[in-house]
């Protein structure tokens, strides 16, 4: 029997058909060209009303499930959740995931060529917002002739976009799944993003964002990723995973050539990240997250929530201190006050903010119940 899972998948690229002035951004500036990288799992049905748009988190990409080639070691970032018989059941739904605007995995971002100069944008790339990302996703849906979404779903920055979708294009969203997310980052979240940006900008190779064609600010970007990784874990999961064990060297040596396991893990994560991520995208995307404030952009939380038409499922995770349960509750109770259809659960999980990527069982079951259950 063939195992029921998504195998080889192919990334697609689509160039948005824009008016002559280009894509107007929330900042007032425009982009002359926008290319979107996306992947699709499952097929749209005849009525094209079974499409689920999955929204990736800060460092994610369009590659949500399956593998690009037989030798790929790790499948897409939400492979456990997307596939035949899984929570996002590709026998029934057509799942689409695209790389965000400002990213570096195929969609137009600061590393793309600026048509005006023929060179990469660097810091000439306009500031983009989560709203701009959602607008690009809507235009992608329009190009694919999809006018209503069965659901939008995402965790962390992806959850923030899912929320923005329900408020910005309420008539298009039947359901939204918002995991480990918030309507605005708290100052602790902004602070960690600031440390990441500072690490990059203080690397001499960053050179004001002009490093394309030469060596990238790998050291700065790696440090940024190390800090990020600490915030995605919990104290408990780090204790279980690493404790105080040593990876190399003689414990207590004075040459500092010894390394705790947690150190070597973070170094490895930092190095691995440098190979696939652009430092300028790190800056643009963290800024987009920091600036995002749903209530502020829609004239208050209750005005924002009044616009919502679809049903929402909001999940938080007990050990997530970066996007704590309290922030999910803010969304949930604001929706409740507006009389909207919203369900909420806090999942007991030791994995910190990363839980939504790792905690498959209860999360899957709740999402399945939400996607396939009765709609009132």
């Amino acid at each position: 029997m063939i195992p029921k899972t998504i195998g080889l998948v192919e990334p697609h690229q689509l160039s948005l058909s824009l008016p002559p002035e280009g894509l107007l951004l929330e900042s007032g500036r425009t982009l002359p060209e926008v290319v979107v990288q996306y992947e699709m799992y499952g097929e749209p049905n005849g009525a094209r009303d079974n499409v689920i748009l999955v929204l990736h988190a800060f460092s994610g990409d369009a590659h949500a499930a399956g593998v690009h080639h037989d030798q790929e070691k790790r499948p897409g970032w939400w492979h456990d959740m997307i596939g035949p018989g899984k929570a996002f059941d590709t026998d029934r739904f057509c799942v689409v995931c695209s790389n965000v605007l400002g990213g570096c995995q195929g969609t137009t971002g600061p590393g793309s060529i600026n048509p005006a100069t023929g060179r990469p944008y660097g810091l000439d790339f306009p500031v983009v917002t989560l709203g701009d990302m959602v607008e690009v996703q809507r235009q992608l849906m329009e190009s694919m002739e999809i006018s209503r979404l069965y659901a939008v779903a995402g965790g962390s920055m992806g959850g923030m976009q899912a929320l923005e979708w329900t408020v910005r294009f309420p008539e298009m969203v039947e359901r939204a799944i918002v995991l480990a997310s918030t309507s605005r980052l708290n100052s602790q979240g902004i602070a960690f993003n600031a440390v990441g940006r500072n690490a990059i900008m203080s690397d001499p190779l960053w050179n004001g964002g002009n490093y394309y064609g030469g060596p990238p600010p790998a050291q700065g970007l790696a440090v940024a990723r190390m800090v990020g990784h600490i915030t995605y874990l919990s104290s408990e999961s780090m204790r279980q995973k690493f404790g105080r064990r040593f990876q190399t060297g003689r414990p207590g040596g004075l040459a500092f050539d010894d390394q705790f396991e947690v150190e070597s893990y973070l170094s490895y994560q930092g190095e691995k990240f440098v190979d696939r991520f652009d430092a300028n995208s790190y800056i643009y995307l963290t800024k987009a997250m920091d600036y995002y404030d749903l209530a502020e952009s829609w004239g208050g939380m209750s005005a924002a929530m009044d616009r919502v038409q679809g049903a929402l499922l909001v999940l938080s995770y007990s050990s997530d201190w970066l996007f704590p349960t309290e922030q999910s509750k803010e969304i949930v109770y604001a929706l409740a006050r507006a009389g909207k259809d919203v369900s909420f659960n806090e999942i007991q999980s030791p994995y910190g903010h990363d839980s939504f990527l790792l905690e498959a069982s209860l999360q899957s079951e709740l999402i399945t119940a939400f996607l396939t259950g009765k709609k009132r």
Partner: protein
Amino acid sequence: MNVFDVIVDMVPSGATVLDLGCDDCTLLERLHNERQVRGRGVDIDDRSIQECIRKGISVFHGNLDEGLKDHPTGSYDYVILSRTLQQVRKPHLLLDEMVRVGRQVIVNFPNFASLINRIQLGLGGRMPVNKNIPYSWYDTPNIHFFTRNDFVSLCREREITILREVILYRQRIAPPVLPNLLATEVCCLITKDGSAV
């Protein structure tokens, strides 16, 4: 006939309802179907939450012992607490919270002073175990034992008005004769004194 029939009967069509300790949303589903309410459930159990979501009923994870602080005052027409008051840590505080959040509150509970319990404890000398209180003393979710009269006097103390009281005897509505002696279960519609009815 059971207590859910009594509750459904107390709720008018189109009301907004918050069901605390909603379990698998059996009651809320009936209220949706028979009274077209806009309902929401609160429960602490993952499986219950999953079942409510499957039934398409809005549900929140919540611990009743932490009160209802996230729910604004007067935000529901009816707050319901079915067979749970004897299971929470501070029943008097939860009662205060319910009459704050709900314009009216429906609460039902087993009457510990019912005749069968009196016989089992008073004559038999053992803690009552029967259809109404089906748990042995060492393994029970019930952590407070109180009677119909205890409840009436608690309401008076906390300035809560009992608008309607339905007496059940073995799952059937009984005439309100000697309620503290005969009721196996009591279902009350209550409201905070002075709040608009």
